[in-house]
């Protein structure tokens, strides 16, 4: 039998373990090489690229109408918001004024997507720390949102509903009743979420004081979204650089100062309630009118550079289009929130236990296609 030295240890006798690319808690094909001293983590090194499709290169050969749908495949849990960001960037280049109805529909869809994404995250996080039941409870509510999406957009996950100038199809007549039913249903269920997971003493012990990220580090590592807001950084694009109708809405930017997994957890839990309130404010106030602005059949962005940012469920998603005036972008850069958040993982996980690594990854809400692009 081989001795331990031959099977992968460092000079200090630390154990090197591959977590992933196929591992139950990496939620995809993330590959982490972790160095362990007993149960304690000494180093985490992410190896990326298992589903790198070079979407940025792909987009260079797609027209401005076509490239939007590809971005659903990046952060598939907030595909609406990704599409929205791309559509906004094209509109900025073409100076298209989006009709008010389309704006409201877009915001509604964004918030529903955010809710669905956070629900899945909640279930997956609970599963990571070992409770399997919340996963199914989360999917029960997510299913309602998916059905609403399916009815209006025609698909459940990669909707491709946003087009430059508005949305593809008008809202389905069942949309408003469906969303209202969902709101009443979810309001009671979100309290159950707290009962089942948030208040649980085991869960709190697993999350509190684990994976702390200070405010300075969060900024330096470029963290955005709930990850940074859990460390006390104001970074909600909806508040800092309001787009669409967010400026006229009443909602709070959730800031927690703990910086640990529990703070990030609470940010997302509270954000779900904020999203609910945004949807409530808008659902009865959808203005009448066009759902799409008149656009040319072939879109050509003027020569120049265009950057838009949008708040996805994971953080700030940036679209950077460099146009040479042709039918296709000269270069596109997608600033994905997960990529920057992941870069802080090593800093956060060092010194904690293996079980904590799983909890930290869960609290970062990583979506691997978003990181790999």
């Amino acid at each position, binding site marked *: 039998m081989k001795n331990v030295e031959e099977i992968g240890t460092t000079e200090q006798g630390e154990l090197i373990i591959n977590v992933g690319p196929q591992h139950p808690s990496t939620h995809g094909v993330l590959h982490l090489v972790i160095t362990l001293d007993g149960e304690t983590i000494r180093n985490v090194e992410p190896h990326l690229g298992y589903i790198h499709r070079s979407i940025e290169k792909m987009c260079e050969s797609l027209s401005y109408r076509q490239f939007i*749908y*590809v971005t659903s495949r990046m952060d598939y849990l907030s595909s609406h918001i990704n599409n929205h960001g791309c559509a906004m960037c094209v509109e900025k280049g073409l100076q298209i004024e989006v009709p008010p109805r389309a704006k409201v529909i877009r915001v509604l869809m964004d918030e529903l997507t955010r809710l669905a994404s956070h629900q899945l995250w909640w279930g997956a996080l609970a599963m990571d720390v070992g409770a399997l039941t919340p996963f199914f409870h989360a999917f029960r509510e997510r299913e309602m949102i998916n059905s609403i999406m*399916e009815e209006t957009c*025609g*698909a459940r996950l990669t909707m*491709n509903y946003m087009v430059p100038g508005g949305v593809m199809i008008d809202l389905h007549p069942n949309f408003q009743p469906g969303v209202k039913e969902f709101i009443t249903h979810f309001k009671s269920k979100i309290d159950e979420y707290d009962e089942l997971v948030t208040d649980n*003493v085991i869960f709190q012990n697993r999350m509190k004081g684990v994976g702390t990220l200070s405010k300075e580090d969060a900024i330096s590592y470029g963290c955005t979204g709930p990850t940074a807001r859990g460390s006390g950084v104001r970074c909600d694009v909806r508040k800092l650089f309001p787009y669409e109708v967010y400026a006229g809405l009443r909602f709070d930017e959730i800031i927690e100062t703990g910086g640990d997994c529990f703070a990030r957890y609470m940010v997302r839990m509270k954000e779900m309630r904020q999203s609910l309130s945004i949807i409530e404010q808008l659902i009865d106030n959808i203005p009448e009118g066009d759902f799409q602005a008149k656009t040319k059949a072939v879109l050509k962005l003027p020569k120049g550079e265009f950057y838009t940012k949008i708040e996805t469920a994971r953080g700030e998603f940036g679209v950077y289009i460099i146009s040479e005036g042709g039918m296709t972008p000269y270069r596109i850069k997608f600033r994905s929130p997960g990529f920057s958040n992941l870069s802080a993982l090593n800093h956060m996980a060092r010194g904690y236990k293996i079980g904590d690594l799983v909890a930290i990854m869960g609290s970062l809400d990583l979506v691997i296609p978003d990181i790999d692009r």
Partner: protein
Amino acid sequence: MFLKKYISDIFNAVGSLLKGMRLTGFYFTHHKEIITQQYPDNREQLNLPERFRGEVVMLHDENNEHACTGCTACELACPNATIKIITKFDVTPEGKKKKALDTFVYHLELCTMCNLCVEACPTDAIKMAQTFEHSVYDRSQLTKKLNRPGSKIREGVE
């Protein structure tokens, strides 16, 4: 003081655990809450919304006529080269040559159901169908010809 905190800690912890157990206990006893859909059995009750995007189909009326002019707008709109339109030249009664559709080739295996082709079609010749059970035993079966054999363009569609 330490002992008091120690004991109250234990009681709070047990209380929070019991709260969770009450919830799972509730679902254990209330079978009406079950949301499972027994999929292959409930095909009859399964109502997919009319907008659901399953695959691209071409609409044919009772005279086996469609509305496709072979303009290739869908082919250009498609991001994945899913659609290939082969055109031919028909001779109109006036003796003029006119471009018409010969074969509408649709590669279902490449399609991402993005609906851009349907949006692009000027004559509403194609639409999205609600079928979703697309599995076949051979990949070549996924390449489909959407216009039916012997079909021709409807009168008056330009």
